[in-house]
């Protein structure tokens, strides 16, 4: 379903965000993508979404390959991929319901089928009463749930969720996770990027891919042992904590 073949991604002004990553996610598989802030999680998801082109290597999603895909095929791909963006990306001038409806209109869904489906999705994420609110009128967690509902709307082949519970309380997080599990049970591959250790601990059976500084350092399905909790990244915060001056 999703295959990364020695994928490297350089960003113009900041260097390597992903280095020589290879992995394969099967149809109906559920994967946690984890790693510290700046490790490259979002980069991986954006590569799957073909929002980014790999600098080297190849990304394959279903029948689409990053090396051969053509401009007009991109919308076809994206309609099969639900993406809960880390920064939500809601249309500011559309209400919560319209944001979700838009994703359905894009797929050419039957107009009469859209409205009930949107209301059902909003209900699933606990926002039925906020259907006609604009994003600016929603709380952070509510916005996140609209983004989740939109990603689920098109019954995608692949669901990408980027820190989808960062603004949700524990109970809402659990509910969202269950929604993902249900979708997954129906055959959707799910990649969930998260730092939420509670979530990871609670689902020890789930496959985990761990990134660190752009390298894939751990894959629970392969035989590579999980490395000791590593060194780089946010060390400076710890230097401070260990006794730096106050700001």
């Amino acid at each position, binding site marked *: 379903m999703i295959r990364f073949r020695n994928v490297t991604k350089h960003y113009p002004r900041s260097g390597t965000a992903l280095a020589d990553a290879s992995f394969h996610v099967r149809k109906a598989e559920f994967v946690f993508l984890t790693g510290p802030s700046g490790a490259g999680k979002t980069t991986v998801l954006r590569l799957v979404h*073909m*929002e980014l*082109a790999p600098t080297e290597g190849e990304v394959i999603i279903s029948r689409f390959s990053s090396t051969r895909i053509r*401009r007009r095929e*991109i*919308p076809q791909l*994206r309609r099969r991929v639900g993406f809960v963006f880390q920064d939500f*990306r809601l*249309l500011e001038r559309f209400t919560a319901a319209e944001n979700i409806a838009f994703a359905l209109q*894009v797929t050419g869904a039957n107009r009469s089928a859209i409205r009930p489906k949107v209301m059902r999705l909003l209900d699933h994420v606990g926002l039925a009463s906020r259907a006609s609110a604009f994003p600016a009128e929603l709380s952070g967690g509510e916005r996140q749930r609209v983004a989740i509902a939109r990603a689920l709307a098109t019954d995608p082949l692949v669901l990408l969720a980027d820190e989808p519970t960062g603004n949700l309380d524990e109970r809402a997080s659990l509910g969202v996770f269950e929604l993902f599990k249900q979708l997954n049970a129906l055959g959707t591959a799910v990649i969930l990027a998260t730092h939420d250790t509670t979530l990871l601990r609670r689902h020890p059976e789930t496959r985990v891919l761990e990134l660190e500084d752009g390298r894939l350092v751990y894959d629970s399905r392969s035989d590579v042992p999980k490395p000791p909790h590593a060194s780089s990244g946010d060390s400076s915060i710890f230097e401070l904590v260990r006794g730096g001056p106050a700001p």
Partner: protein
Amino acid sequence: MRPFREALISLVRRPMLAALSVTAISLSLFILGLFGLTAHNISRALAAVEEKVEIVAYLRDEIDEAQLRLVRSEIGAFPEVESVEYVSKTEALYNASRELAEFSDVFPDVEVNPLPASLEVRLLPGRRDPQSVGTVAVRMSGYDFIDDVRFGRDWVDRIHTLRRIAGGTALIVGGSFALVAMLLVGATVRMSIHARSTEIAIMENVGATAGFIQRPFLAEGLISGLAGGAFALALTFGAYRLLDRAVMAVLWLPDLWIAAGILGGGVLGMLSAGRSVRQELKGLYAI
């Protein structure tokens, strides 16, 4: 229809952006309206002056009825000629007495009418330039019964020069105005769509095709353009009334121009919107 419904929703929900871009479009098209008003009136004034271009052929007194009829019909068949008017000796004398007060004193006294009969020849519009006038005059003076041909060469030359200058200026100044108006509409539509680049990017992210994204914007461009055209018409009409009352009687624009202006505004708004949206699309890969 989705595009129009969405366009209207979007116009209503972004009132500031919509108002600013319709304002800018109206003002841009108003420039054309003002220029059109001025150009139309100057052109009509020049045409009115040019209508007075005529060639007068003085006839010998010896000419008889049949000869006169022949000459008239032959000259009337020249390709440049619009009409040939016969002025008899008596009419000439009568006209002269009305126009010249001094002459009128002596009018009853004259025994012999000293004025010749004449043919007054008008040329077709577009054939009133010095060259055509000259050609016709030369051909006419070839007739035996025509004594003398007059057409005021200076006058014809001067009108022609004026026409050329006015035409050239209108072409360059008016062309510039039209271009400026188009570019201004383009720039403001571009700007208002640039202000929505995030929105467009999100639509792309969700899997909308270029066409699907574009359609409501096209409808919005069309609506704004038509509205801008209508407001521009109102402004132009205001300027027309002001001119008409405060300065002199002026002519209002031909209906065709008005229709063309408003429709042009709509089409221009739509095309600009289409182009602008295409430029905002990230396409295959953002980076």
